[in-house]
C-alpha cells in the first residue's frame, strides 16, 4: 500500500515539476519579448508559415466537417421533424466547437510537429548552443516568434474555417437536401450571436499558443540525435492534442456554462 502511494506521489511530483518547467519556459520566452532586440521578420515568416500554408488543410477539413454535419443532422433530426434546425446546428457547431478544435488539431499535426522537428534538430546539432555563443537568446530568436505566430494566426485561420465550414453545410443543405438557399442563409444568420464567433476565436488563440508552445518546448528539450527528435515530434503532437481537448472543455464552461 505504501509502495503504491509512493509511486502515485512520485508521479504527481513529476507532473508538477514538468508543469513548472513548461511555465518557466513559456514565461522566459514571453518575458524576452519585453525588451529589444525584436525580430519582426521572423514573426512575419512564422505567421505566413502557420497561417497561410495551413489554409489548404484547415479549409478542406472544415469544408467536409460542415458537409458531414449537415448530412448527419438531417438524418437525425428527420426522426422528430426538426429538419429546419439544420442550418442553425451547423453554424453554431462550427463556430463554437468544430472550427477551433479541428483547426487546432490540424495545425498541431502540421505545424506543431514541424516546430518540434526543426528546433529539435537545431538542439541535437548544437545550433541552439551556437546561437547563444553568437550573443543571441534562443528563446527570443526561436521560441517567441513561433508563440506569437500561433497566438495571432490561429484565430484568423479559424475565421476562414468557420466560413468554409458553414459553406460546406450550405452546399449539402441546398444541393443534396433541397433546402431553399435563401431560407438556409436566413436560418444560419437568425440564431447566430457575436459571442458564438468570438468564443471560437478566443479558443483558437489559446489552441494556437498551446500548439506552438508544445512544439517549441519538446523540440528545445530533445536529446539523443534522430531518435530524440522523433520522440519530441510525437510528444509535441500528442500533448498539444490532449491539451487542446482539455482546455476546450474549460473554455466552453467559462463561456457558456
Amino acid at each position: 500500500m505504501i509502495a503504491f502511494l509512493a509511486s502515485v506521489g512520485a508521479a504527481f511530483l513529476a507532473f508538477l515539476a514538468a508543469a513548472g518547467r513548461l511555465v518557466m519556459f513559456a514565461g522566459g520566452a514571453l518575458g524576452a519579448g519585453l525588451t529589444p532586440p525584436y525580430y519582426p521578420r521572423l514573426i512575419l515568416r512564422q505567421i505566413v508559415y502557420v497561417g497561410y500554408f495551413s489554409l489548404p488543410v484547415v479549409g478542406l477539413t472544415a469544408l467536409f466537417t460542415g458537409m458531414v454535419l449537415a448530412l448527419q443532422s438531417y438524418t437525425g433530426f428527420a426522426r422528430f421533424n426538426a429538419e429546419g434546425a439544420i442550418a442553425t446546428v451547423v453554424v453554431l457547431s462550427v463556430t463554437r466547437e468544430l472550427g477551433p478544435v479541428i483547426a487546432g488539431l490540424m495545425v498541431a499535426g502540421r505545424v506543431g510537429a514541424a516546430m518540434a522537428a526543426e528546433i529539435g534538430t537545431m538542439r541535437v546539432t548544437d545550433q541552439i548552443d551556437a546561437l547563444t555563443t553568437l550573443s543571441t537568446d534562443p528563446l527570443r530568436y526561436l521560441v517567441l516568434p513561433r508563440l506569437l505566430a500561433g497566438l495571432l494566426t490561429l484565430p484568423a485561420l479559424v475565421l476562414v474555417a468557420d466560413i468554409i465550414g458553414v459553406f460546406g453545410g450550405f452546399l449539402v443543405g441546398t444541393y443534396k437536401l433541397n433546402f431553399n438557399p435563401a431560407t438556409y442563409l436566413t436560418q444560419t444568420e437568425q440564431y447566430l450571436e457575436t459571442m458564438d464567433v468570438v468564443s471560437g476565436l478566443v479558443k483558437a488563440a489559446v489552441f494556437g499558443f498551446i500548439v506552438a508552445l508544445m512544439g517549441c518546448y519538446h523540440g528545445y528539450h530533445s536529446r539523443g540525435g534522430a531518435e530524440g527528435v522523433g520522440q519530441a515530434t510525437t510528444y509535441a503532437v500528442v500533448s498539444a492534442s490532449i491539451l487542446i481537448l482539455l482546455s476546450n472543455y474549460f473554455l466552453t464552461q467559462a463561456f457558456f456554462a
Partner: protein
Amino acid sequence: MSSDAAPVAKIAVRGVEKSFGAKRVLDGVEIGCGAGESLVIIGGSGTGKSVLIKCILGLMRPDAGSIRIDGEETVGMGRTTRANLMLKFGMLFQGSALFDSLSVWENVAFGLIQGRGMPRQQAREIALQKLAAVGLGAEVGLLSPAELSGGMQKRVALARAIAAEPEILFFDEPTTGLDPIMADVINRLITDLVRGLGVTTISITHDMVSARKIADRIAMLHKGRIVWQGPTAEIDRTDNPFVDQFVHGRAEGPIEMEVRAA
C-alpha cells in the same frame, strides 16, 4: 599599485564539478589559460572535455567551483551580463553547427547582425573577408550549408567564430571527421588566424597531430580531473602513464575503456 602583482589569468577554472544524475563528469577541474595562449585539452571520449568547455562558455552551469574570465566570476552570472560576456567568445563546434535556414555569408555574419546590431551590408562585407581568410571565395557565400563538404563547413564555422574578432576562441574537435590533408589545412588556418589575431584559445581534441600543431600548452583530462598539463614539447618526454598511454594509443594502461557486453 604594486608593479609585481601576478597577472590575472585570462581564464581560470577552479574546482569545477558537474554531474548528470549519478554520473560525475567533472570532478574538481583546475586549469588556467593566459592571455594569447593556446591551450589544448586532450582526453578520451566521455572524459568530460565538451562539458568543461560548455561550462566555461556558460552553456552549462557547474554544480560547484569557480570559473573566472579576466578575473570576473562567471558562475551564477545574470542573463544580461552573460550576454555581454559572450561578445568576447567565439566557438567552433564539432559538427560545425551552421544554421541550415541561412546562406553561408549570413551564417558568418550572424553574430555581427544579431549579436552586435551591425547593418547587413557592412556585416556582409566582413563575412566575405572572413570567408576569404579561410580560403573560400565570395561565390561560396551564396550557397547553403547543405551544399558544402565537411571540410568547407568547418572552414565556414571557423570564419563565423572569428567574424566578430573575439578575445577568446574555443575549438571543439576541430579536425574530427576530416581527411588528414583537410585536417592539416584546418590546423594551419587555426594557427595562422589565432597568431594573427593574438587571441586566447582553448581547444579540445583527441587528435594528437592537431594538438601538437596548434597548442602552446597541453592538458590531459581523465575521469573529470586534469591528470597532467605542460608545454607541448613536454608531451613526448613526460613519464605520466595516462599521457603515455593516450599519446601512443595503447589499449593497456591506467586508462580503462568501458566496454559493455551486449
